[in-house]
């Protein structure tokens, strides 16, 4: 296995471990280190991990924040996050956060993205 693949796997495992961690502070840790990283791969992994956590605080990070999750400037990161949202078995919490974002006091770009994703999730 190539060295880069080993490092990527290790990164992914640590981020997954944080997403599985019962401590609520793991969300803040993922947001602080992962979603603010300059590396696309790290942001992508972190956003997907936060979606898999499927908690109110974790979903708010990837739905309601500008430049993070579905609002990331990287298309790959945004599309991966949307794909992970569509893959959720229980979409209730995600739908609630999306609705709150569309109706909330946030920038128009964020609202538009939330509306589009909400429509996609309703259709899926």
């Amino acid at each position, binding site marked *: 296995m190539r*060295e*880069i693949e080993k*490092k*990527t*796997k*290790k*990164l992914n*495992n*640590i*981020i*997954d*471990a*944080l*997403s*599985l*961690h*019962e*401590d609520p*502070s*793991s969300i803040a*840790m993922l947001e*602080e*280190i*992962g979603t603010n*990283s300059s*590396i696309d*791969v*790290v942001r992508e992994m972190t956003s997907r991990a936060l979606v898999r956590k499927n908690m109110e605080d974790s979903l708010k990070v990837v739905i309601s924040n500008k430049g993070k999750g579905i609002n990331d400037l990287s298309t790959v990161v945004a599309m991966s996050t949307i794909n992970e949202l569509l893959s959720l078995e229980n979409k209730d919490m995600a739908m609630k956060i999306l609705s709150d974002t569309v109706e909330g006091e946030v920038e128009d770009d964020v609202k538009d993205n939330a509306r589009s994703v909400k429509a996609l999730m309703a259709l899926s």
Partner: protein
Amino acid sequence: MEISSVRENIKSRLFNSTKYETVVSNKSNPFKQTSFKGNVLSADVFESATKAAKECAPKNKLTMSALVGSISNFGSKIQAGIESIVAFGNRMKEGFSNTWNMLNKDISLTEVRSAISTRWNSMFETTNPKVLAKNKTVDELGTMLNDAIADYSAIAA
């Protein structure tokens, strides 16, 4: 036979030995039981020295002188070879001496133990997410994540 004739015969045999030796050598073989299976060699089977000398023509002499010259060169080559062996030995000795000094200076038991311990721990270090989530705190995972990002950046850059 008379005594005088016998005396004459003995005298002639004593003073003209070669005359009788050829006859004797052809007629009897004192080593009959042990050599040549009883066959007597009556002819000279060895080449004479004069014949060999005749065959050593001027051309052959030139070759022989070249051979002798090359043999004398062998001496210098052998000497050079011995010198190179001595130099090699000195280098080996010096290298061994340096290695010995390094062994005595740079490596201590503590460092060896530390190196073995690190290798041993790395062998059993797991990055299984479930195990990590169970055994590590969030802060520890945060530190690990920072290190992993730094490692990834170093390779990806």
